[in-house]
Structures are given as structure tokens and as C-alpha cells.
């Protein structure tokens, strides 16, 4: 079974600066999908960014980008120009390419943004 690890329970960043959240996973599959979800205090999980494992190019969405290292099974999230609204729990998630496979989530990293 796949597992997802986030080794940083809490992180903080100064407003306007850059922060990187770590994620590693364990799988024997060669093709899969990786996600970062954000969960603010409102509880609603929001998709931040998505990466297909067969794509070598790192995904980017505005201030959010990933560093996908397939051989190392690492999928870190970089947040540039951090804003107060970025404060939330961030979850890394893995999904198998097989039909119907559920998403496996990591334990999360709580990000604080300091003004």
C-alpha cells in the first residue's frame, strides 16, 4: 500500500518570503498522480496544485510550484511571496493510476504566515 509522509508538522514564514513544504511517498507504481491540498480553518480542502508522475516538468500555479523528484519519491511545495491568506494546513496526497483508487493523504503541515 502507498504511504505519504510529511515530516514537518509545523512551519512558519514571514509575509512576502518563500517557504518549502516537504512530502515523500512510498510506492511501487511507475505512474501515479500527486496533489497538494490546502485546508484553511473553514475546513474545506482546496486543491493547490497537481502533478502527473509521467511528466518531468514541475507543475506551477501562480505563486505555487512543486519540486518533483521521482527517483527520490519526493514532492515538495514551494510557496513564493507568501500571503497571510496562505496560512492553513497543507496536505500532500497520492493517487494510483488504477481506476477507482482512492487518494492517500499525508498527516499535514500547519503553515503560519507572520506579518
Amino acid at each position: 500500500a502507498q504511504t505519504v509522509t510529511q515530516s514537518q508538522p509545523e512551519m512558519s514564514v514571514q509575509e512576502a518570503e518563500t517557504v518549502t513544504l516537504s512530502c515523500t511517498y512510498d510506492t511501487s507504481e511507475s505512474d501515479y498522480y500527486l496533489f497538494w491540498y490546502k485546508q484553511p480553518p473553514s475546513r474545506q480542502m482546496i486543491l493547490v496544485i497537481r502533478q502527473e508522475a509521467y511528466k518531468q516538468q514541475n507543475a506551477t500555479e501562480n505563486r505555487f510550484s512543486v519540486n518533483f523528484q521521482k527517483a527520490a519519491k519526493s514532492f515538495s511545495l514551494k510557496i513564493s511571496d507568501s500571503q497571510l491568506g496562505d496560512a492553513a494546513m497543507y496536505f500532500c496526497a497520492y493517487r494510483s493510476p488504477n481506476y477507482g483508487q482512492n487518494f492517500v493523504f499525508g498527516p499535514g503541515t500547519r503553515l503560519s504566515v507572520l506579518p
Partner: protein
Amino acid sequence: GAGVSQTPSNKVTEKGKYVELRCDPISGHTALYWYRQSLGQGPEFLIYFQGTGAADDSGLPNDRFFAVRPEGSVSTLKIQRTERGDSAVYLCASSLSASASSGANVLTFGAGSRLTVL
């Protein structure tokens, strides 16, 4: 609907009682997932539906938990004889399909139902 709707937002019950949690997915989404999130942890898979059928219920912790989706849209998670350890946020998510193809496999979550068992 425009988003995934979950009711109730908060539910407080007594140990031993029966509870139903409802999820109304995005219109047209055929795949529906239930997750449980305990305090300070990531979501833990419970069950997922493709259409009306439970395609994978391997995450249900025991036979006190049951979920239905009779018409392939709204789903209800049912918990019998609730225990204090059932206290958690129950998250529902839907996706266009259960296919792993790139455009269809993004989960859209509801705001969750917080269950507190006293």
C-alpha cells in the same frame, strides 16, 4: 449544485446513538468519497462510490459504519451505536469520475461534518 454540500455542519450526540451525515456532490460527478479526519491528522479513506454502488468500502472501520448512495447522487453515511472514538470531521468529496485520467481525477471537497460523541 455549485459545490459539495454536507449537512449537518456540526452534530453533537450521545454515546450509543445513531447518526446520519449527508453529502450532496457536484451535479454530474459520478464518483463520491467519504473520508474521516481526526484532530491534527490527514483525511483517512472510508468508502467510495462509483454511481450507486460502493466500489471500495475497505476503509470503513467496522460494521457500525455504513453508507448508501441510492440514486447515484446524494450519499448518506450512517453510524450506529456511536462511540466517543467516532468523534471527528467527516469529509465528503466528489470527482467527475473514478477514472485516473488527468482531467477527471481531481477531488472537490465539502466543508465537512464535525461529529462529537459525548
